[in-house]
């Protein structure tokens, strides 16, 4: 029977058949209690009962809705997800998986139906052992042995290394069983972890101690350096008022610097609050060396200032002493004067010379003494000094002078070095009123950078060391700290000037060397001076001819001298002396004035005697150069009480120039004038 035939039957017939059908269904349901879904005809044709049909349709629709919902959720996941059946074969994948597969060696759309492990090995560049581990994990989830399996792995491509986390969970849906496999990209997390590990290494491997304290003072972090320090010294390394400082930092939100003493060392702590975490970071630096350098710098600046001051005073003082000496020598020259006058003049000359010595020492300290550095054989200096010392020192002081064979030469000024040794020896003598031993020793040493840094003015390299050691009373640390300061003395007022060691200090600085001192009360004092070695052995040069030993030339009657000095008192007395000696003198107070005098005389001047420093912007040297433009053969004598500019500048003086250090005896001035004139005449 087909549908068209059925439609031809009468309406009554159709209703009757349907009614019978309904009654049969009802009887069936009544018989079995509404628990059946389908019946089979004898020909094997299954018939689904109406109620079951309706419910099945509903459940199919509901399943479809749920399935759509689930696939939306799964597709929304950014991570590639695959569903595996019980055999580990991929039955479905989400969009993220499809997209990833499309860009992989696998190609799009060919992953479904393949075993997951093959795909994973191909696609994710995983190593064999990683694939094997994954296989094992997935199997355990598939057989229900574990609830979840995770595994991290990395894969490298031209874009860099990516990190993934494989998450396998069991899948139970109705009668099918399998697993959900998800690949979560954890590259960002891994990179951040790596970065944070790298950052954590900074404090951890820092060679300075780093600690962190909580608000309550609990130690929450310490690096290796801090651990070592804490093991060695314990809590001593921290500032005493730690808790107060921590609280203060956190309250104010500002950092704080603190210092702690650790035996002879000093630690500088920097406290930095991190208010959000309520902790304080504390980092320490060992500043011992820095503090010592600071102290050295302060001391050296002080000495420099005092030196400049002393040099300045000496300059003016030398001018005045020249006047004093000149007047005294004029008095002495008066043979008709009463004896008392001559005696006084002699005393004035003597005292003025002593004053000049004092000034010379001041200049040496202020490093303004004219210095002649040359390669010097120390043995000669030591021998001559030893001879003097044995004569000068009391018999109860034994003098021992030692040097090794092959002692290198030094770069030094002979006279100055002798002065250094004498000053140190005198100091030693005064420290040994009861007698003792004075040892002067020379040896060649090499100074490392580290050793050099510990000494004021020290430098690394090869040196010759001169040691002057006494067995005297020694010095207290207080005295030791001030020993090189000028005018500092422990001797009675009339016994010491306080310039001896200051002079030694100045001379050593001028030589580019330095001096070290060690002393112990009651045991004695050791001074050590370091001099640069000289590259070449000294060349013996015949001593310069002493002008005074030359036969006195006849002074030409018409010899005219241009005298230029800004000190009127000095001008006055020098004019008198020179005129007394038969010269005609033209005097000027400055360079420009001297040029006017020159022009007024039409250049008829035989010698220029000029001070090197004068107000008015023209020095003696510049003046000499100006005048030589008109008269190149003009003899010049330059004088100065302030000879700093002479150091290293001697070469710039012309061969016709002579230099006369103030204060000078009048005889020496006259000698030099004669000598200069004679040289010109001899040409």
């Amino acid at each position, binding site marked *: 029977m087909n549908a068209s035939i059925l439609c031809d039957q009468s309406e009554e017939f159709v209703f009757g058949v349907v009614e019978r059908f309904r009654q049969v269904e009802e009887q069936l349901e009544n018989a079995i209690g509404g628990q059946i*879904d*389908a019946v089979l005809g004898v020909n094997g044709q299954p018939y689904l009962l109406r109620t*079951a049909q309706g419910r*099945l349709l509903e*459940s199919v629709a509901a399943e479809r809705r749920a399935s759509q919902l689930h696939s939306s959720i799964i597709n929304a996941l950014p991570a590639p997800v695959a569903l595996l059946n019980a055999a580990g074969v991929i039955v479905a994948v989400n969009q993220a998986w499809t997209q990833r597969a499309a860009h992989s060696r696998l190609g799009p759309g060919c992953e479904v139906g393949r075993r997951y492990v093959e795909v994973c090995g191909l696609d994710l560049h995983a190593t064999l052992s990683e694939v094997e581990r994954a296989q094992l994990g997935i199997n355990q989830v598939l057989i229900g042995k574990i609830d979840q399996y995770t595994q991290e792995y990395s894969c490298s491509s031209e874009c860099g290394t990516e990190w993934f986390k494989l998450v396998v969970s069991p899948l139970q849906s109705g009668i099918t069983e399998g697993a959900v496999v998800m690949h979560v990209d954890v590259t960002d997390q891994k990179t951040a972890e790596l970065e944070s590990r790298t950052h954590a290494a900074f404090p951890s491997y820092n060679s300075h101690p780093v600690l962190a304290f909580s608000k309550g003072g609990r130690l929450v972090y310490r690096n290796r350096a801090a651990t070592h320090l804490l093991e060695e010294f314990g809590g001593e390394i921290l500032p005493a008022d730690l808790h107060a400082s921590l609280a203060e930092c956190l309250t104010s939100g500002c950092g704080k610097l603190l210092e702690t003493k650790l035996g002879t060392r000093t630690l500088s702590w920097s406290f930095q609050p991190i208010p959000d975490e309520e902790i304080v970071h504390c980092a320490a630096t060992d500043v011992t060396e820095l503090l010592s350098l600071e102290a050295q710098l302060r001391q050296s600046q002080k000495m420099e200032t005092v030196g400049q001051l002393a040099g300045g005073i000496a300059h003016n003082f030398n001018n005045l002493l020249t006047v004093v000496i000149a007047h005294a020598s004029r008095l002495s020259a008066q043979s008709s004067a009463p004896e008392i006058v001559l005696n006084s003049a002699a005393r004035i000359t003597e005292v003025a010379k002593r004053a000049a010595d004092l000034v010379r020492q001041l200049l040496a300290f202020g490093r303004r003494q004219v210095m002649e550095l040359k390669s010097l054989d120390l043995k000669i200096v030591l021998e001559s000094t030893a001879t003097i010392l044995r004569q000068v020192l009391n018999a109860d002081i034994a003098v021992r002078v030692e040097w090794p064979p092959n002692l290198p030469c030094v770069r030094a000024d002979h006279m100055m070095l002798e002065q250094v040794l004498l000053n140190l020896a005198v100091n030693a003598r005064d420290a040994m009123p009861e007698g003792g031993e004075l040892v002067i020793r020379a040896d060649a040493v090499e100074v490392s950078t580290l050793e050099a840094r510990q000494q004021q003015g020290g430098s690394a390299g090869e040196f010759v060391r001169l040691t002057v050691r006494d067995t005297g009373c020694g010095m207290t640390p207080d005295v030791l700290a001030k020993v090189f300061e000028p005018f500092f003395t422990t001797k009675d007022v009339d016994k010491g000037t306080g310039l001896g060691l200051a002079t030694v200090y100045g001379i050593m600085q001028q030589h580019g060397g330095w001096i070290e001192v060690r002393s112990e009360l009651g045991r004695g004092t050791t001074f050590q001076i370091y001099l640069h070695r000289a590259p070449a052995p000294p060349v013996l040069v015949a001593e310069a001819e002493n002008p005074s030993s030359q036969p006195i030339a006849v002074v030409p009657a018409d010899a005219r001298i241009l005298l230029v000095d800004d000190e009127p008192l000095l001008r006055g007395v020098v004019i008198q002396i020179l005129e007394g000696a038969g010269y005609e003198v033209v005097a000027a107070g400055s360079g420009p004035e001297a040029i006017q005098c020159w022009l007024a005389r039409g250049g008829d001047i035989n010698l220029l005697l000029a001070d090197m420093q004068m107000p008015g912007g023209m020095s003696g040297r510049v003046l000499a150069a100006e005048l030589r433009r008109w008269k190149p053969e003009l003899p010049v004598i330059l004088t100065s009480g302030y000879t700093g500019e002479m150091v290293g500048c001697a070469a710039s003086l012309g061969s016709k120039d002579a230099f006369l250090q103030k204060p000078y005896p009048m005889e020496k001035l006259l000698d030099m004038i004669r000598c200069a004139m004679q040289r010109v005449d001899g040409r």
Partner: protein
Amino acid sequence: MAANSPNSVRALTNLRAICRNYFNDQPQIEIVDVLEEPHRALADGVLITPSVVRISPSPPRMILGDLSDVKRTLVILDPQQEVTLQ
């Protein structure tokens, strides 16, 4: 079973629970969907779903419905065994 019809799904769930709770998961269950394999069902004399046919041990026994009556189900499946019902 007739696909995922409500009574059929209920019957399967109940059968699994009974196997787990009273037979220590020992019985092997074969599932036949009559909508897909009607002749396979007829071969075992099944005319109505859901039905459970105990094939072994013989003689075969059959039970109809969603198996919600656990006591009756147990009696039919294993009349020899004395089962204490909760």
